């Protein structure tokens, strides 16, 4: 069966016009998902009957002449750290294997109100902690371009599912690059919105001052349509900001003339693969030819991002994951000696190696005697990183950079060396620390045929600038139209 080449925009139009039924689209989607699941392991769960049932409701609505939502009949996948009141929500962890959420995440309600068909939940690094999806307790997701390689992480299942054409769109979450890195490795578009743009109600928390939910698709136009649906204030998340949501899909056609693109040489230093550097510089040349002005900028503290992040994110994780105690939900150790052993054995057995490593690092960074030297120090460095971005965005509209220093690496290549894995996020992490918005857009392939991503970053709450530039880039290039599924 051929990969779907339909975009979200095309599928929604086909359903609206009656050219295709939502049920037929849903059936083809689930068939293909099941066919490719053994090769890619992009999904952790899916529900054929529920998907077909929802699709039939859309078809009935249409037959009755009722108004259809902007995503009516469009199949969408969700990263499995987004709560759904149907099916499991595992976070890729054994500790949540028996858990069944009683409520939907805000974004799930928004998608379903817009008519989207949620076909399944995608694989991730356990609790979104990782850069390859190898930390899933249920096994890694493989890269559709080369199944001996990782899909990236932590939203690896969502990005692989879109890249393989199993769905046209998916949601992920991004704490330090977890949407953008796998989007780059899989050759799809992934957006991390501004901190506060999308409600995290129902997203299982990892690093609460960093986490953000965002859309993944093959085109920027599709990502804009998804963002229209999920963005906006929600009183159930006090960090979601109450400000107007522009029509992102309507502002894509603006000219690039006069737009200022900042280039920081800090993003092109040692450690960056030469083919990736060449592809990203060529992409910047394309934007310049379209009328954008390239401006050299300096982000002197960017290189401290990884060190800063792995103290702050782990500190927040150590606190957030304290809720998994074997009492309220999830798995409990079978024969606890006492209540302390109930907590410690449940957590020791239920969490995987990386999650335990991060909980311990974060606990240490917050512990008495070390708090000032580690957590507080990192929080101050975060201020310096944020100031770099504030300064840069007073001079430029967007900053362009690589997403990752390399293309997709081999399964197992970095799994024994946590620090080497952390360094995969070196170019993405600062956007989370500063709270700015950032997007990954396909901008070429290396000599092995693996996708390369261009990162564009912009000031808080100007997603429209990112999306316009990225859309205009896709109009001038063809990278996003190349599809190759599980060829090896």
């Amino acid at each position, binding site marked *: 069966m051929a990969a779907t080449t339909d975009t979200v925009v095309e599928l929604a139009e086909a359903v609206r016009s009656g050219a295709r039924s939502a049920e037929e689209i849903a059936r083809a989607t689930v068939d293909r998902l099941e066919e490719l699941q053994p090769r890619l392991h992009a999904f952790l769960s899916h529900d054929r009957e529920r998907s077909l049932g929802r699709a039939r409701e859309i078809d009935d609505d249409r037959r009755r002449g009722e108004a259809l939502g902007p995503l009516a009949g469009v199949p969408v996948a969700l990263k499995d750290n987004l709560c759904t009141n149907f099916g499991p929500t595992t976070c890729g962890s054994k500790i949540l294997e028996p858990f*069944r959420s009683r409520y939907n995440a805000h974004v799930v309600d928004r998608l379903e109100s817009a008519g989207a068909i949620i076909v399944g939940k995608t694989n991730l690094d356990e609790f979104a902690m990782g850069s390859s999806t190898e930390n899933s307790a249920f096994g890694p997701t493989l890269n559709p371009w080369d199944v001996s390689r990782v899909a990236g992480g932590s939203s690896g299942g969502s990005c692989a599912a879109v890249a393989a054409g199993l769905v046209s769109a998916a949601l992920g979450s991004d704490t330090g690059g977890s949407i953008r890195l796998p989007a780059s490795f899989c050759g799809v578009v992934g957006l991390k919105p501004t901190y506060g743009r999308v409600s995290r109600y129902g997203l299982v928390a990892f690093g609460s001052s960093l986490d953000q939910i965002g859309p993944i698709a093959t085109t920027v136009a599709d990502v804009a349509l998804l963002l229209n649906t999920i963005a906006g204030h929600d009183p159930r998340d006090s960090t979601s900001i109450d400000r107007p949501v522009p029509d992102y899909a309507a502002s894509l056609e603006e000219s690039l003339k006069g737009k200022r693109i900042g280039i920081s040489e800090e993003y092109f230093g040692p450690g960056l693969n030469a083919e990736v550097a060449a592809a990203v510089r060529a992409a910047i040349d394309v934007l310049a030819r379209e009328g954008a002005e390239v401006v050299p900028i300096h982000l002197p503290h960017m290189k401290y991002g990884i060190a800063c992040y*792995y103290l702050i994110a782990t500190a927040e994780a150590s606190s957030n994951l304290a809720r998994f105690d074997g009492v309220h*939900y*999830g798995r409990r150790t079978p024969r606890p000696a006492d209540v*302390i052993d109930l907590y410690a054995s449940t957590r020791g057995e239920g969490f995987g190696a990386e999650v335990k*490593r991060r909980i311990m690092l974060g606990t240490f960074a917050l512990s008495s005697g070390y708090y000032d030297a580690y957590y507080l120090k990192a929080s101050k460095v975060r*201020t310096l990183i944020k100031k770099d971005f504030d300064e840069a965005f007073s001079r430029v509209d967007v900053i362009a950079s690589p997403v990752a220093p390399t293309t997709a690496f081999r399964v197992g290549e970095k799994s024994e060396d946590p620090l080497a894995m952390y360094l995969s996020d070196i170019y993405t992490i600062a956007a989370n620390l500063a709270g700015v918005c950032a997007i990954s857009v396909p901008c070429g392939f290396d000599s092995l045929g693996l996708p390369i991503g261009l990162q564009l970053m912009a000031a808080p709450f100007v997603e429209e600038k990112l999306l316009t530039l990225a859309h205009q880039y896709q109009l001038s290039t063809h990278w996003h139209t190349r599809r190759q599924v599980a060829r090896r």
Partner: protein
Amino acid sequence: MAASLDESAVRHVANLARLRITDEECSRYATQLSKILDYVRQLNELDTAGVSPTAHPLAVANVLREDIVRPSWTPADALANAPDHDDKFFRVPKVLDQESA
């Protein structure tokens, strides 16, 4: 900043975090966490005297709402995922009359 975590320090942190770890895990985490702490020590290159910390990327404070009664979960909803419970309560092993903790 201390540059490394020995096995007894790892045991201490694991206890604070309520994580049961094996001897083998303890020795592996001591090596890995020491390497990571060695890496984060580069933050000491920066003079942060007079820099205020950032805990949250946006300047949002005191988000308030009207104090109105709204629908919320029943005890049955709250207990639905509990590994062990009775009609009203989460059930855990006996806490009192113990010398531990």
